[in-house]
């Protein structure tokens, strides 16, 4: 295996990991505030179609990212009103959001099927990516670099800022946070909106970077992987980054193993390669829950409706 081949694998891995990293990061912040939003897949699809439509109509991929984030945040508000203001069940409402987002994106995308758009190209000048090191560092779409920046920002926000502390307090003990005067519902609205915006960008990564076309169900169930990823990462942004790339690597390895023919498939049948991400999830969850913290990273108020007594 040559170095060039490994670089080619790496580039595919980065592409496959970026959407679930965005969506997972948004869901992480939402869950940290104590809200479980299972509508990630629906929000990703709405972001995807909004992003595609924007590029198709205006030709501007940067604007498409903004529109996709706004669209994702907007549909997440349907969930927020139902669960936060009306105290509806979060699991059921989240599932409904996924179904709603899938249907809405299909309807919105009807007139865009069969169009092709120009994918996001790299922001760096071509000469930077001429040699191998340059290729590894500089040959990606802007969304990839943005996802790394967001991981850092989310970590900094949650662990080093007062606002992040309030958000975590709301997620750990909503009644205490409420009793010392913080707006639990307000903080959660903001967290849900952020989750929606990130899912929207994650969804938009499909038409903007990976497959410059619109098709129904374009995200192919990756919203669910993003939700699993948050648990996998123990609600820690750094681990989420590693987890997203781990999932991307396993999914990509499966394809490269099959393409290389008999060598890899003799090691493990192709069904085994396809099952690897899920086996790895089980193993990781087992290790996490066996550790001393006992998987106790989950926000204490996760999924519980907050009904202030006064």
């Amino acid at each position, binding site marked *: 295996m040559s170095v060039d081949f490994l670089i080619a694998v790496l580039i595919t891995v980065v592409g496959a990991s970026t*959407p679930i990293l965005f969506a997972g990061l948004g869901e992480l912040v939402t869950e940290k505030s104590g809200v479980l939003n299972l509508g990630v897949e629906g929000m990703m699809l709405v972001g995807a179609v909004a992003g595609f439509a924007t590029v198709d109509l205006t030709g501007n991929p940067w604007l498409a990212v903004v529109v996709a984030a706004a669209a994702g945040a907007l549909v997440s508000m349907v969930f927020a009103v139902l669960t936060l203001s009306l105290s509806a069940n979060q699991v059921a409402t989240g599932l409904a959001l996924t179904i709603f987002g899938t249907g809405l994106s299909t309807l919105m995308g009807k007139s865009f099927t069969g169009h092709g758009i120009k994918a996001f190209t790299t922001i760096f000048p071509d000469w930077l990516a001429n040699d191998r090191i340059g290729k590894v560092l500089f040959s990606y779409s802007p969304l990839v670099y943005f996802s790394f920046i967001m991981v850092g920002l989310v970590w900094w926000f949650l662990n080093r800022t007062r606002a992040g502390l309030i958000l975590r307090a709301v997620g750990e003990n909503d009644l205490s946070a409420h009793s010392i005067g913080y707006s639990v519902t307000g903080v959660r609205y903001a967290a849900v909106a952020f989750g929606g915006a990130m899912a929207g960008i994650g969804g938009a990564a499909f038409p903007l970077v*990976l497959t410059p*076309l619109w*098709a*129904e169900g374009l995200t192919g169930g990756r919203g669910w992987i993003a939700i699993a990823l948050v648990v996998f990462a123990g609600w820690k942004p750094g681990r989420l980054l590693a987890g997203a790339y781990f999932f991307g690597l396993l999914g990509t390895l499966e394809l490269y193993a099959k393409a290389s023919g008999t060598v890899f*498939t003799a090691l493990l049948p*192709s069904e085994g390669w396809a099952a690897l991400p899920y086996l790895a999830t089980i193993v990781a969850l087992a290790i996490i829950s066996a550790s001393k913290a006992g998987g106790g990273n989950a926000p204490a108020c996760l999924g519980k409706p907050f009904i202030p007594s006064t």
Partner: protein
Amino acid sequence: MIKLNRRNFIGGAAAAASLPMMASKATAADPLKVGYIYVGPINDGGWNTAHEAGRQQMLKALGDKVQSQYVENVPEGPDAERVLRDLYNQGNRLLYATSFGFMDSAVKVAQAYPDVTVEMCTGFKPSSNNNLSNYNIRFHQARSIFGTMAAMLSKTGVGAYLGTYPVPEVISGINSFTIAARKVNPNWKTKIIWINTWFDPAKEADAARALIDQGADVMTQHTDSPAAVQVCESKGVPTFGQGSDQSQFGPTMCKSSSLDLWGAFYTQRTKAKVDGTWKPEDTYWGFKEGAIDIAPIVHVPDDVKAAGEKIKQGWIDGTYDCYAGPIKDQAGNIKIADGAHATDGDILGMNWLVEGVDGSLPS
């Protein structure tokens, strides 16, 4: 004005109840109602778009002799039976079930209603009421044209075929592609990936990248979305689309596409039902009957184009058959003897890969 009392009411109700009977006596002159179910949206740009185009062609050809309705996005499985029964209850007496996964539902509905006629696409089960036929088209024929051109365009002698599920329809396409390519280049290798989904554009694109990164410098695919064609366009790898003309997604690199043309079949079978001459008989059409064609061959050298068109002509006049023996499988065993040809049954049940395919069937 009629005064509404009990006697009048009962009389009126009886008259109303007899109305449908009278109406059904009059059906000889009424148009035949024809129902279609599709597994996906009609604008998917592939499989379902092709079936819908066929339905439109049938409607145009038969005019006011028929009325037709369709239901799209019908999930394969028990839901299909509900939709088919619903179409029957709305008066449709000829039903087209256009996806493999509808087979069991289609057979059940055919068994349940002796007066319905069912045409089942890519199926193989009969109905004891003698009111069900299976139909299919010879998808593998276009693949031998692409295999020939792929081997002529390739520099590395390695091509790729992006497979969905290891079912006979896909396997016979891979074999046809490889056999034709090896006639041009005896050392030809076809790399394959099974992605185990009909539709996941991002995975299709990643699989296409994986195949290209491993040395394939020309490829084709059996997937429903044009994602792989887009990857090939961006990487400068010649490719061939399937189901409909996909050149808009690969303006320079999509050299041709296979086209499924169901219209002539739908017209013929629907007309037979209208005329009362419909009999259960399985249909398996190809280039010769106009059920398969290819989009214009573009952006290739003249000799490559000529070679491709020669094979197409061979299919039309019956002088070419990709499955003419001797043909060996991957292990080197003779599967089709010298001088023999694969039968329709062999092709429709194909479960082995030919020599030259670099990859395996999931066991």
